[in-house]
Structures are given as C-alpha cells and as structure tokens.
C-alpha cells in the first residue's frame, strides 16, 4: 500500500536517475545538457506532485461560490516552478551558447577530445 501511495516519488526518481546517467555517461556536451534538462524536469514534477491534493482544483478563486469550502491545490510550488521553467530555458540557452563557442574554438564537443587538445597545448 505504501508503494502505491508514493508512486509519484518513484516516477520522479526514475526520471532523475536517467537524467543523471545521461549526464555522467555521455561525453557529448549537447547530450549532457539534455540529461540536465531531464533532471530539471523531474524536479518540476516532484514539486508539482507535492502541491497536488486529491479532489482539489486549480488555485483560482471563483467569486460565485465564495464562502463555500473548495479545496485548492497549493499555489506556492506552482509559483516556484513557473519561474524556474523560464529561468531554466534561459540558462539552457546560455549552456548551448557555450557549447557552440567550444565547437568553434576546439572543433569538437566530445569531452575527451577537448581534454586531449588541452593537454597538447
């Protein structure tokens, strides 16, 4: 029963670990960034699933039924993740720009080849 109740954590862990695996195992810098993005999304899902209350609705107050006791899901994680997504895309763009510059100056984006070229100098 415990496993079924916390399956959202399991999904998040699987996503997070696959992101981590891509991040460590792949030498290609673009693939590393993709792994980082998957890792990031797992954190988003973690926050959003924490905010959910079963039977609750989106946190927008309806004027007509004010006074009734409606369950709203927690708005605070939504705010945090909302800004985190847009910040995430701009930092990802920065990382990709760095990769492009590395490609221009080293001619490769494979980690070990860059390392070898560094050693030669």
């Amino acid at each position, binding site marked *: 029963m*415990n496993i079924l*109740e*916390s*399956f*959202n*954590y*399991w999904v998040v*862990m*699987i996503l*997070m*670990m696959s992101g*981590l695996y891509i991040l*460590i*195992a792949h*030498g*290609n*810098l*673009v693939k590393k960034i993709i792994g980082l*993005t998957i890792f990031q*999304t797992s954190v*988003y*899902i973690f926050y*959003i699933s924490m*905010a*959910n*209350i*079963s039977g*609750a609705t*989106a*946190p*927008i*107050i309806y*004027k007509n039924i004010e006074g009734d006791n409606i*369950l709203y*899901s*927690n*708005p*605070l*994680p939504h*705010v945090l*993740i*909302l*800004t*985190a*997504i*847009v*910040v995430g*895309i*701009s*930092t990802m*763009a*920065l990382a*990709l*720009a760095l*990769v*492009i*510059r590395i*490609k221009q100056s080293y001619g490769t*984006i*494979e980690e070990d080849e860059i390392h070898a070229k560094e050693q030669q100098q």
Partner: protein
Amino acid sequence: MLLNIYSLLSACFFVLMDAVDVAFTEAAVGVGVSTILLLSTLTITGSFEKNKRIKPILTFVIVIISGFLLIYGTLQMPPFGSSDAPIHQHVATYYIEESYTETGIPNIVTSVLANYRGYDTLGELFVIFAAGIGVITLLDVNTNIKNLSMFKNDLSKSLIQNHILRVISKMLIPFILLFALYVQFHGDFGPGGGFQGGVIFASAFILYTMLFGLKASQKLISQSWLEFFSALGVLLYTCIGMIPLFTGKSFLNYKVLAQDPLQGQHLGVLIVELGVGITVFSIILLIFIAFTKQVSIIGEGK
C-alpha cells in the same frame, strides 16, 4: 524531437495536477522554444555522438546507488495527494484564504508571484536578463563585424517555397499575438501572466523569422530595439517597486499606487507582469536570433 514530446506530456501532466499556470509555461517554453534552440545547436555541432562511453557500468552502479538512497528517503514522505502533508500546513493556507481579500486577484498563483514573492520574481527576471546578455556576448562576437546582407540565403530558403505553410502561418500570426496579449493581461483572473505571455508573443515572431528569414524580421523589430526592450522590462519592474519607497512604504508595496489599496494592488501587479512580459519576450527573441545567426553562418560556409 523526443524532448519536445516529453515536454508536451509533462505539460499535460501539470494540467492533471491542477497546476494550470505551470502547464501553460511548460507548453510554451518546452514545446516551442527549447526544441528550436536544441535543433539549431545540433545543426551547428553535428548530431552524431562518437561512440566512446566512459565506463557505463561504473556510472550505472553510481546511479543505482543514489537512486536507492533517494527512494529510501521517500519512505518517510507523505502519501500522494494527501491534504495533511506538511507542505500544505505553513504559508500556503494563508495564501489561499487571505490573498483574495488582500489583493483582489482571483488567481492565487499570480498574486503570490507578483505580490507576496515579488522580490523572488524580480530576482528571477534579473537571472533571465543576465542569461540573455550572456548568450549575446558569447555568440555575437563574430557576427558584429559582418554585414546583415549576408543573411540573404537564410535557413528559411527552403521554407519560402512552401506556399501552404506561408499562407497558413500568415493567417495564424495575428491570432497568436492576440492570444499572447490575452494571456498577458488576463493573468490576474485566469491562468497566464507575464512569463507565459512573453514566451507566446516571442514564438509568433520566431514563426515569422523561420518563414520569411532573419532579414525580414530584423526590419520588423531590430536587435537594438530588442536589447532596449529587455532592459526596459526590468527597469519597469524596479521602478514600480521604488515608487512606494518615496511615500515611506516598503519596496514593492503596491497599495500606494492608487487611492483604493485594492486598485493599487491590481495596477501594480498588472505593470509588474507587463515588465516581466516585455523582458521575457525580448530575451527569448534575442537568444533565438543569436542562435539563428550562428546557423546561417554555418550555412554560408558550406
């Protein structure tokens, strides 16, 4: 492409989890913008990885161990969807119960974003601004010298031939812009706000650039104007925050902006969201233009 579908799926998941604002953002950002950026990077760097993995077994062991540690940690966590979890006990109940009477804004996410956590949002905006400046300084170094006329044979050359795509997109772009404005200014009442509105507005321009080339879109809105706008948004946010300081109130206290405190709150949130929208729009578009320039340089070289 797979990442694109993944983003769309997670946007659907956010809707199911009642996080409509977040779903909106993820759909706009993940499905549209990030895919374009990744694809243009892959065009520049080449899309094949050399098959040299660094000890996959060792990595696998590390990943499995850390995964088990994390899952061991979740054993103590509250069950999914329970209403008495610790996360719902602290400040969230205050927001849900009091924010409407205090700010008059039905969408709690917007009121928390622009009002209770206004400092946080201002900081995020500065991060986006800084990241945009970083991208421009990294990628524009070798394009500044060259003339704009070299973008004649753009990456969109093949797309220009496609009449159906052109006509349909021409019809769609006004509606996308209109929808972006709706999302921007209706953020107080429904899902939406500056972040989403800015990204959708930028995506209309991105569609235009992809179809008609960089030169045409530069005629429409030049890069120096975009740089100006990106700074203007941040400035607008900060200035609105500064106004209450002159009347002896605290930074970002919108109540003094109008006679009626509720109206002041509304006005403040609206302007702050406008600032966020302007900055996000111009930064996303600037990043896209910087990447497109790089791609077209590669196209020139071939």
